[in-house]
């Protein structure tokens, strides 16, 4: 009984040694700020000046009186509703097409380039492109097209990453299953919907979830392309939080906005996790 105790304790100490830095890091740089944000959201917390406890006032203001928050919410959902499907469809289509191409690796590199260049540089170049296209009013100055322009730029920027994920999944599709399907006479659309998509469904689920989370946090593209305008046509939730914190210098309001955004993302992701049981198939 005595002998096994000693190595176990040593093991425990070394485990502690390994885990301490990351736990400290997590506590200091993630848990503490997150907890602090909860506290701040209940205060009127100006960047300069005195703080005051206001209960749920910040939330009430955002949902009831803030002229921008609800439109930012709407814009964020419209952006997500357009961006996620377009991104996934484009990435999926290209992944299947590349799979059969002789120049597969070349295409992969080419399509991945936008995903690894800095977002700010991409947005600035696209802004110049939209300006060069001209038109009166410019697409970025027209309330009906500004958000669509932001979506177009974002899809171009973002699909490369998903394409790589899908491309890997397509390559890993089990040849025996595909062969069995073709022996059974499944071809074309039937083969795609009933065999290939279920085979890569874990990758689809991963991509859909991550893309959705990223889309709900969209900031850089509209910030550079349109600064939220014209009117508030392209103002998103994160822009609203940024504006509250760094332009209005109202950190309490910014924290409240950030918490609402967090709750929305958590909710949407939870729904996706519940829903995945119906359509995601894991091989085992």
């Amino acid at each position, binding site marked *: 009984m005595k002998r096994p105790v000693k190595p176990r304790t040593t093991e425990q100490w070394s485990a502690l040694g390994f885990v301490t830095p990351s736990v400290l890091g*997590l*506590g200091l740089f993630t848990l503490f700020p997150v907890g602090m944000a909860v506290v701040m959201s209940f205060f009127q917390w100006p960047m300069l000046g005195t703080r005051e406890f206001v209960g749920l006032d910040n939330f009430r203001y955002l949902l009831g009186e803030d*002229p921008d928050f609800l439109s930012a919410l709407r814009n964020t959902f419209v952006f997500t509703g357009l961006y996620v499907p377009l991104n996934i469809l484009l990435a999926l289509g290209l992944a299947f097409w590349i799979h059969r191409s002789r120049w597969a690796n070349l295409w992969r590199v080419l399509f991945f380039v936008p995903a690894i260049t800095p977002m700010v540089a991409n947005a600035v170049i696209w*802004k110049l492109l939209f300006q060069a296209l001209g038109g009166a009013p410019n697409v*970025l100055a027209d309330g009906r097209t500004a958000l669509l322009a932001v979506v177009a730029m974002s899809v171009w920027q973002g699909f490369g990453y998903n394409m790589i994920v899908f491309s890997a999944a397509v390559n890993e599709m089990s040849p025996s299953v595909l062969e069995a399907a073709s022996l059974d006479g499944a071809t074309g659309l039937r083969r795609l919907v009933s065999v290939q998509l279920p085979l890569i469904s874990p990758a689809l689920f991963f991509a859909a979830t991550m893309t959705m989370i990223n889309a709900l946090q969209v900031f850089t593209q509209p910030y550079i*392309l349109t600064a939220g*305008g*014209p*009117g508030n046509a392209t103002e998103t939730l994160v822009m609203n939080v940024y504006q509250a914190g760094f332009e209005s210098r109202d950190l309490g309001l910014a924290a409240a906005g950030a918490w609402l955004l967090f709750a929305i993302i958590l909710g949407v992701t939870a729904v996706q996790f519940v829903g995945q049981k119906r359509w995601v198939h894991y091989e085992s």
Partner: protein
Amino acid sequence: MHMRRGVLLALGLAGVMVTTACGGGGGTGTSGGARDTGGTVTLDWEMWAGSEDEKAQLDHLAALVTQKHPAIKVNLRTAPFNDYFTKLQTEFAAGKQPCVVSMQSLRLSAYADLLEPLDGKADVQGFAPAALQALKLGGKQLALPYDLASMLLYYNKDAFTKAGVAEPKSGWTVADFEQAAKKLSTGGKAGFGMSFADLHTLSMLLSYNGAQPVTPDVKLQFDSRPMVDALTWYAGLATAKAALVPASSSDVGWGETQFVNGNAMMAVDGSWNIGSALKDAKFAVGFAPLPAGSGGSKTYLAASGFGVAKGCPYPAEAAQAVSVLTGPDAQAYLAGQGRSFPSRTDQQAAYEEFLVKQDPKNAEAVRGAIASVKDGLAGGVPLFTTKNWDSVGKLMAQYLIRVYTGDQSPQDALATIQQQSARGQ
């Protein structure tokens, strides 16, 4: 397993407590200066600087302070202009502000409660009255100016000659301006480059009919009648196809960029860009006062300067440092470096000479520009801003563009700006 979890939890908690202890120190009263055993006071001075050259100029100014007051040392800290005010407000929030604060008149109201009034503590002789006025709020001198800026009409001399239109000059009216803008709008080029930036846009509205977005007691009145009339006129330039509308709400420098690129034949820009426009434009640039409306040519003025932070442990020394940093020697030095139009009347000629020497073949244009700046100062009004001016600027970018594209009436847009910026003004 059970124990391990307990340890992790305890560690996490300890981490949180350590951070709380560190983070809780903000807002202590004194910061930004220290006295060593020899009695020398070292003061922190925070200033924006975009290049090593600019930093070297500022270091020279800091050395001037020690030259004059051997017991005072100035320790310069810099940040790029775009980050400067974000950094400054964070430092104030954390109680780590410098003793000597660099301030712009357009941002003054947001920092008014954090600056020590300098009245009676520093000599204000020799400054252009408008420059002092711009850094005054509620009757208190919150900073001393080192520069002064007015808005000018920049125009493309070559295009005017080619179209046979008389060049703008002092006394040019709004009607002359409109006519010229229409005549110069041909072949895909426009007569005027529009803007939604505060000084650029609001100065034109002011010159048109005296419209002011802020009352003398610093309250917003964007929806006032004169503002609606003036904006209706300004937006009319776009409807008449005589002006280029900004391509998006994020194009803050639209008018002046299109002007230098040769796409717009006139634009409003500040006196601080005289030198760079002459250098960058591939055509002859001319300068004139803004077109005169019902009350003559008018422009908003802006000034930058240095003040003393409240809570600075050595306010008397800091005020002495500010006096030297904005003194005749410092101004003469900065004018000789071509930094900006000096706030001290005696040193303004040196700035003109610098620009002439820099670009001798444009001597005439430079002299015209400086004459226009002085003209502007005569009809100039400092632009006083509200505490939430950053938000107001964002709203102007988002809603004025809708008026220019014809998407919203001037009345509705101004009402929206007024209503949305009522909070926190």
